[in-house]
């Protein structure tokens, strides 16, 4: 167990984080969270020691940089929403979707224009403020993010793409919160792209709450490539009501140290989630990923599929947690976690954890930690491929089972290019 460290956070941080003219309820929410920070414990990530990471080294008096470089403008093409730190670069929702009642805006705008909606869902169903110290920090110090609301029965064909860039051109605090509400029987796809601009060693706190109401279907993809000097805590949580479904595809391709919590709460009967993760660790980086499915609802189903690759002296830990609550009759929980080490000095781990409190359920797990197959390498190299190219092919092949399942072709392509880049960079540091 992790003991609570005493922590002194400058009260100015709370003021700094505030959006302009915050409504009373949000001030109260922040203050409630702030008061609890010290008494709450840090979240537990099995086999990852992150105590010394500067996750809570916030800057009391950050300097705001309001220039948006050309690279960010051009990257924001193809995204409906883009932000750089606390700056909103663009919000661009088609008239058609606006007419259907779809809402897409930055959090600072949402709390004014759609205050009641945000109030109903923010830290209400998916994530609770007092789960641990970091959830409380996210609630107290949230200083940016996105709100997406898709009303009842609305179906959207094209994905909604969110680009959220951490601004590390100067010291600053990045506590980003994305709230997604899927109304009853709505259907849509979302891509969240997170990256870092600049190399100031700032922490990143990224939280996503998805509330999937009855019968809704959400395909959520995330591609994370935060910078090498960024220590990050990433928490993505789904709350699924009756017959709702969320398909997650997450690429954890950060260059800095990361702890990530990806959870789905299958609250409603017949709710279903597929949680697929690809992660690559390189150089001296450590990444720990806890993916949890909790079955509360009868006949709910949650499947976890994770694949990780390690290079250099890096570490990567997958903890897969399948939890079935008493009363979840007929629930299903399967998981498969596999890591492949391309370097003898890397440390990979895959731990399945099943916590089952009901009898008539189906649960299973598979896990493996392996090294690259030398016969495969020899075969590929015997056709002229260099060791590096052969390794990348084997790595890609290993991740293939997740990649081929990515529901949105553009995301798949983007994921593949990011993986290729990460592997090439990782090989460069060997």
């Amino acid at each position: 167990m992790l003991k609570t460290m005493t922590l002194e956070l400058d009260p100015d941080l709370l003021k700094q984080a505030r959006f302009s003219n915050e409504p009373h309820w949000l001030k109260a929410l922040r203050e409630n969270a702030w008061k609890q920070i010290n008494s709450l414990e840090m979240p537990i990530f099995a086999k990852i020691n992150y105590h010394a990471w500067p996750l809570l080294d916030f800057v009391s008096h950050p300097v705001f940089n309001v220039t948006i470089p050309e690279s960010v403008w051009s990257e924001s093409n193809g995204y409906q929403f883009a932000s750089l730190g606390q700056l909103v670069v663009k919000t661009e929702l088609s008239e058609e979707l606006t007419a259907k009642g779809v809402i897409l805006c930055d959090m600072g705008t949402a709390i004014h224009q759609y205050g009641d909606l945000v109030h109903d869902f923010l830290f209400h169903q998916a994530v609770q403020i007092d789960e641990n110290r970091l959830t409380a920090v996210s609630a107290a110090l949230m200083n940016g993010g996105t709100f997406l609301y898709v009303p009842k029965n609305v179906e959207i064909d094209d994905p909604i793409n969110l680009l959220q860039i951490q601004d590390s051109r100067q010291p600053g605090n990045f506590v980003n919160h994305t709230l997604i509400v899927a109304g009853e029987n709505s259907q849509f796809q979302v891509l969240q792209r997170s990256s870092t601009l600049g190399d100031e060693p700032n922490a990143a706190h990224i939280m996503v709450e998805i509330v999937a109401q009855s019968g809704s279907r959400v395909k959520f993809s995330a591609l994370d490539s935060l910078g090498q000097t960024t220590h990050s805590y990433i928490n993505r949580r789904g709350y699924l009501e009756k017959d709702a479904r969320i398909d997650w595809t997450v690429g954890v391709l950060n260059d800095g140290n990361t702890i990530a919590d990806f959870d789905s709460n299958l609250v409603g009967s017949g709710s279903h989630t597929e949680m697929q993760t690809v992660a690559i660790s390189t150089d001296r980086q450590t990444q720990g990923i806890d993916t949890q499915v909790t079955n509360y609802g009868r006949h709910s189903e949650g499947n976890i599929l994770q694949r990780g690759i390690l290079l250099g002296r890096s570490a990567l830990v997958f903890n897969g947690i399948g939890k079935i609550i008493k009363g979840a009759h007929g629930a299903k929980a399967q998981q498969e976690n596999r890591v492949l080490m391309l370097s003898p000095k890397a440390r990979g781990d895959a731990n399945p954890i099943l916590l089952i409190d009901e009898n008539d359920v189906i649960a299973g797990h598979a896990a493996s930690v392996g090294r690259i197959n030398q016969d495969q390498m020899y075969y590929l190299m015997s056709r002229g491929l260099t060791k590096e190219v052969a390794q990348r092919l084997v790595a890609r092949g290993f991740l293939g089972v997740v990649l081929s399942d990515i529901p949105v072709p553009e995301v798949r392509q983007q994921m593949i290019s990011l993986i290729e880049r990460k592997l090439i960079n990782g090989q460069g540091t060997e």
Partner: protein
Amino acid sequence: MATLQIKDLHVSVADEETKKTKEILKGVNLTMNTGETHAIMGPNGTGKSTLSETIMGNPKYLVTQGDIMLDGTSLLGKPVDERARAGLFLAMQYPAEIKGITNLEFMRAAVNATRPDNDPIPIRTFLKELDKNLEILNMSDDMAERYLNEGFSGGEKKRNEILQLMTIKPKFAILDEIDSGLDIDALQVVAKGVNQMASPNFGVLMITHYQRLLNYIHPDQVHVMMGGKIVKTGNASLATELEATGYAGLRDELGLDVDLVDEDVPAGNGGR
């Protein structure tokens, strides 16, 4: 014209369990030029596969003496991928299966391995040639999209080796028992693919137990290997002769003291 020369090659392998090394090749000499087709025949356990894997640069085989040279430059000390890019190709007896990598992307990567980074083969050129080769080898289009050798039958794997050979176009191809496990029809198809490659800039070294393969791919020279050495070299008729006398017959004719693995009676007239 290119030349592959093997001089007094001695090779040992280490037993994976006991870690003891054992000498398999005991002084092999062989010279071949592009434009020529050579066959190496010999009984089981005589070092034929060791020779082919050693030429290609399999790290499991340790060269203790002698040399392997391509156009006068020693290949010893060069890793397998460098040898491949220098123009060697080994059609393997047991190709690896790799899930998640398609045949297509693998072969493209292989072709691009010998091209400059900024000049990869245009995809249309590549696909056009691939279609042509698939047709020659009676392979269906979906072979390109299937994962590399994954779930392939024995015959499909052999054809896939030849498909790679035709795609990569090396200077020298070593075919390690390409005929094993093939029925006559498949053997003809494989031979058709290899014969298609015939050119003054391409040489073939076939390794086989049986004369049958040589009916389809005609050798200029036949070498017989026994006890880790080439014991006799001749033209195509040597293979026919062997078919009649067997390896034991040749051994006795040459007066060699060599055990034949698959033979009940040890060497030396009832032996040791």
